């Protein structure tokens, strides 16, 4: 995405302006428009549909509260992604703390021969995978993503799943573009090795 395109006022501008004046309908429109993307980012981050829904809910709530501080330096979508990523990071941190304190939880991944799997994937969130093979394949990819460190995971999600540019990712995560590039390389290398291993098995 070029510089020009990036700073071009997006369609959300008018809605954001209305939100700033306290228009709840405008905010609802923004929610409907962006919730899917945000939910998917959150879901890939935490690999849990319930948690992802809560993250999105919290993120939109934070966005509403902080809408006055949104200066339009980036698009509303980018700004919202930053909030979702940060909320997801916090959630992961919480979960990690929780796990270290709890010996056993029903939500813990079930360790199987082929790795670990979660209950949620098949429960609340409707899986669109119709073919068993495809679903299996997707589960394996998800397992590999899950194994990534947060800093690599988020770059991979933002670039390969959501298609954000290096520049946008750099803005969202407040890191240099070179760092985005190197983190992405390492994330992909890991994914390649992980998937090759999984496929071989």
């Amino acid at each position: 995405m070029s510089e020009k395109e990036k700073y071009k006022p997006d369609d959300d501008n008018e809605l954001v302006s209305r939100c700033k004046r306290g228009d709840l309908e405008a905010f609802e429109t923004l929610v409907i428009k962006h919730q899917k993307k945000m939910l998917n980012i959150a879901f890939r981050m935490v690999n849990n549909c319930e948690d992802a829904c809560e993250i999105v809910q919290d993120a939109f709530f934070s966005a509403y509260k902080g809408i006055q501080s949104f200066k339009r330096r980036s698009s509303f979508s980018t700004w919202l992604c930053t909030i979702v990523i940060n909320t997801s990071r916090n959630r992961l941190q919480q979960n990690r703390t929780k796990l270290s304190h709890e010996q056993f939880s029903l939500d813990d991944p079930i360790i199987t021969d082929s790795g670990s799997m979660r209950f949620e994937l098949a429960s609340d969130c409707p899986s669109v995978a119709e073919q068993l093979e495809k679903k299996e394949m997707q589960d394996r990819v998800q397992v590999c993503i899950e194994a990534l460190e947060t800093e690599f995971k988020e770059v991979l999600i933002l670039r390969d799943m959501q298609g954000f540019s290096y520049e946008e990712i750099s803005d969202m995560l407040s890191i240099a573009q070179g760092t985005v590039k190197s983190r992405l390389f390492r994330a992909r290398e890991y994914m390649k090795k992980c998937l090759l291993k999984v496929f071989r098995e």
Partner: protein
Amino acid sequence: MGCDKIQEQLSAYLDDALSPAEKETIDNHLRSCLKCRKALADLEITVSSIKGLDEIIPPPWLTQKIMTSVKAEAERKKRSLLQKLFYPLHIKLPLEAVVIFLVAITALYVFKNMEPELKTRITPSEETVSEYAEKGKARQLRPKVKKQSQSPGGMSSNKDETAAGSPSHQERGQLPAPLSEQFIYDKKPPVKEKYSEELKAPEKNMLMKSAPSPAGLSAPEELKQERAPQAPGKIISGLSEKEDISLSFKAIDIDSAKRELEEALSDLGGKLVKEEPASDTLIIIGELGSDKLLPFMKKLKTLGYVKEMTPTPMSDKDRVLIKITVSRH
């Protein structure tokens, strides 16, 4: 460039995030390196696998849930704004304290401002009371004066007439008994006599009979005559008219008081017309321009205790006669 270096760039190469030079280098290498071409192919599969992950669809309740929390927040904001305006305890308490303080200050201020007004309202009545008290005193004093100023009976008829022409009837009508008693000794004092006459007609008549009267008239006739104007010139030489004003002046030293009065008269263009010395009383009759009357009165008041017995006449005469009875204080 080694394969490791090339493979490090493949990720960016795939994203088309390399400079044209870097891209060309990699293109050239790939043409000759099967291993790197394999690495690129694997990478492409990996990325497409990730990209190929199905998106999850938000549950239908998500929007509603988000909006519920947002609306609650909006409500809370609105309420807290109202609370800030109407209910904030942290503002209300000091506000109440401030308001009470202001009310107290205002009340004090109003009270302070009202006080002088109350005083000014009270003052006149006090003055009135003191005036009355002074008048009463004066009345009591008069007999003394009159007693002291016993003078030839010739004067008396003249003074009687003066009194007849003067106002303050009511005041005189209410004169207490001692005055009439005094009248027995002396009928000269101008003011009271006539009324004493009226009040104590029999006594008066008796006196009148005994006193040298112009004609040997019977008592009722004498009264009539007394009320009728007479020529005072016969009695007070050089004075063709009765005094316009009668004053009682009290001083410590009569002689110095006389001098001061003379001086005051002459200062204001007047003159001493006549003086009648007695044991400890002095009657001075002075003549003064009517326009100088008020300054003269003021001057007198600075010299000693003055009681005006007849009110200042609104005379149209150029000059007025003032009778001043000087007595020891």
